[in-house]
């Protein structure tokens, strides 16, 4: 969920605006290294993909639907820098063009979802890379875990911001329990969809899964004996 204006105070909003600018700058340098002159068109299309998947609602229970956030998915498929950059740009466009997420909360939203969430998801995936490359089930399990933790840790980013610049009327423990509980539920849905999506891409175009780079089997050339 995108934060609206007024959840955190003005100085905290400005601090996290600065954090977001620094994070996006780092992501930009990294993305350019990954994609060189292809960066803009490729990242543009990946960002459009992330945006489009956020429009796809999937059922959680009858009457209750959720939608993908896509941070861990983008990081596993396109790499952490391109992933963070795409999610960040999606958030900027949603705030400016679609009035979704407050303008003053934009820095905090980028910090949580594009930077903290994507980094957490990717670090989990990289730490378990040996499991992911072993089998299809392993890849699905790692993708699930990365997406689940991506969602939960991004919500902890909100708790941090709320602790610094939120409302003292609420106990931090209550806010933490509500946010983490809610996002654990969202994270399960996010995890299942991410796992199935990543395995589907890995089955068709394993070369497009950034996490699996360098594990392709070399072409075997046998001489006619």
């Amino acid at each position, binding site marked *: 969920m995108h934060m609206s204006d007024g959840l955190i105070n*003005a100085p905290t*909003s400005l601090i996290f605006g600065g954090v977001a600018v620094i994070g996006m700058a780092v992501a930009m340098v990294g993305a350019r290294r990954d994609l060189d002159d292809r960066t803009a068109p490729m990242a543009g299309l990946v960002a459009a993909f992330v945006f489009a998947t956020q*429009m796809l609602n999937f059922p959680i229970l009858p009457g209750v639907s959720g939608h993908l956030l896509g941070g861990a998915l983008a990081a596993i*498929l396109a790499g952490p820098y391109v992933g963070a950059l795409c999610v960040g740009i999606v958030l900027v466009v949603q705030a400016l063009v679609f*009035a979704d997420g407050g303008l*003053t909360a934009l820095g905090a939203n980028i910090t949580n979802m594009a930077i903290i969430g994507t980094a957490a998801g990717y670090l989990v995936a990289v730490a378990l890379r040996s499991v992911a490359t072993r089998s299809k089930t392993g890849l699905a399990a790692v993708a699930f875990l990365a997406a689940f933790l991506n969602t939960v840790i991004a919500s902890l980013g909100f708790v941090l911001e709320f602790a610094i610049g939120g409302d003292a009327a609420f106990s931090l423990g*209550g806010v933490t329990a509500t946010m983490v509980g809610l996002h654990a539920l969202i994270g399960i849905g996010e995890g299942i969809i991410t796992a199935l*999506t990543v395995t589907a891409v890995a089955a068709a175009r394993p070369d497009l899964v950034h996490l699996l780079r360098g594990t392709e089997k070399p072409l075997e050339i046998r001489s006619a004996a």
Partner: protein
Amino acid sequence: MSAGHAGTNVLHHPGDSPVHRLPPQVKIVAALLTVIGVVATPREEFWAFGGYLVLVVTVWRMARVPVSHFAKRALIEVPFVVIALLMPLLGGAAGALAGWNILAKGTLGVLTSLTLAATTTPRELIVGLQRLRTPAMLTTIATLMLRYLEVIAAEARRMRLARISRGHDPRFLWQVGATARGIGALFIRSYERGERVHLAMVSRGWRGAMPDRGVAASPATWLAGLTPVLVTAAVLGTAVLVP
């Protein structure tokens, strides 16, 4: 909560008012500073928030955009309204004031963002970011994203239609397999389209940056565009300084 971005242009209300004609960079800065002023206002100064609402409605009148345009689209705030209404139950009187704080500032924030989006096309917003010295790479990615969003979203809709017409009717989370595989296929198609778009751009002389079509705003234009910010600052100053 961003369920249901229908088209890319649903928020824009075409027009030729002075607000529409302001350079986009001025409008972005004005909207951002106004919301910062609103957020910085102490919550007990109820009259100040009424003043901000009058200010927003005045801008709507000048932009000649009907109030109903905003009323429908402000529904995006509903989840926050629910949270704000739950606050008194969780925190008593202090909770009620805190709920009011989130509700008032969140609503004014959404109305300001909607005003910006209603009077400025997506393309102009990107040009505005360009004029505000946003790195060319970011604005180029955002431009391409907006340009291809409709294509990718339409592709996603066609895939969904294909699934439904084949009897797909998911009701529970454990039935999302086909949807997820569809998302996987969508990623591959987006990525491959990106590769084709890149080659097409290179063959047409792409050098790595979009042409800048914007114009610099004169100091007078800046002053005119930042009038709402000055009003906000005056209200904020009165709210903070006058006991």
